[in-house]
């Protein structure tokens, strides 16, 4: 579990960019969406999400805008910027390379081939 938390810590920004890249979202929805899509695996101290969001915004990878919901409440939606899209593409490529390499190492079938 501790290992999983460490992995999550290193991938938070990648996950945030991926979710926002699919659809603009506000903080609370992002957390719920991450929990739902990971089947509850990615459950973390919710407050850590906001410094991460603001860091990404400061790096101009995402942009936050206050928007009014149909019920009159306001929420701060985050949008992926062009720079963010490029960073996301890079991170995705990195992740694919990394996970493919890890699979090659840990899959028993690959051991047999060697």
């Amino acid at each position, binding site marked *: 579990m501790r290992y999983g938390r460490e992995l999550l810590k290193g991938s938070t920004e990648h996950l945030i960019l991926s979710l926002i890249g699919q659809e603009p979202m506000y903080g609370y929805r992002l957390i719920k969406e991450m929990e739902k899509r990971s089947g509850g695996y990615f459950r973390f101290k919710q407050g850590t999400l906001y410094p991460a969001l603001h860091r990404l915004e400061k790096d101009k990878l995402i942009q936050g805008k206050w928007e009014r919901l149909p019920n009159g*409440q306001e929420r701060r939606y985050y949008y992926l910027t062009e720079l963010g899209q490029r960073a996301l593409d890079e991170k995705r490529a990195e992740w694919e390379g990394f996970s493919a390499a890890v699979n090659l190492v840990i899959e028993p079938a690959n051991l047999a081939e060697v």
Partner: protein
Amino acid sequence: MLPELRRYLINISLNSRLDPREDGDVVRELQTHFEDEIEELCEAGFSDREAVDMATRRFGSARDIGRELYEVYSGGTWLQALLAGVPHLLIALTFALHLWRTSYWLIFVSLVIGGVTLYAWRRGRPGWFYSWLGYFSMVSLAVAFLVIFVAERVLPPLVLGNNALWVVIVVYVGVALCLMGYIVIRVVRRDWLFASLMLLPFPVLFVWFVALERDMGLMDYPRHGFQGGDLEVAFTFLALGGVSAAFIRLKQRHLKVGILSIGTLFILAMIWRFTENGFHPVICFLLALFLTILVMSPAVLQCRVRRWREEVEASDRALPEKVWERQ
């Protein structure tokens, strides 16, 4: 909003030490998060109080989140670092080019310092603003002395009376000190480190005054200038500019404290090296100690201000919602 939640958000706000505009935006965003979370928990059957308790536990330590937010916003850009160094560079230039005897230049520098300070004050008081604020309070001091000087000549004894100048000076110094104290307390409410950044030129000027008074007498300085030229004075202000710029660029709080304290000692050592005979080691140690305490004193002041605010908060639960929002 329940008081527990309000206190929790205040705690995040106090630890993040953001400028009022950023702070308002961040707190509002976190508030909307809790609205959603608490609503969901209440729908699941929890009471308001239980929902707040659970939501804040899920959110994490207010202090840690505040500190993380602080690190996100505390590191300024190169432009902001440059802006923090500019007032010191202006003073350094004034001495390096021997312009401190030129009244037009002094008026120009005063106007620039006043203008930029007021502009930055209206634009949400960013971090670099505080190195301008220090000089701004000095300029207002100098202007007031000029007014007293002129008044003494234009409005002779008829209006001011005998020894009236001294009365005016004493009253003015009292008012100036109160004003300075008020500004420092206002700055400390946000972050004592900014108050230290603002006070940074004071020890440098103080040590220069002590050194000049000892070597030649302050009154003779305008006539003869400092032995070996004004360049040494300029170097110390250049170093101050470097310290201020580094302070703005750094993200971690302990590094900011480090650069302020080491920077102050380094500049004092520079002055000691530049003065003709140096100071006696004991005097030097005492001066360094006193001035480091002066630069770090806002930290103590902040503890007292916060404790006082907590007491007020505890004794007056009926405060309107917006009161806790800073400035």
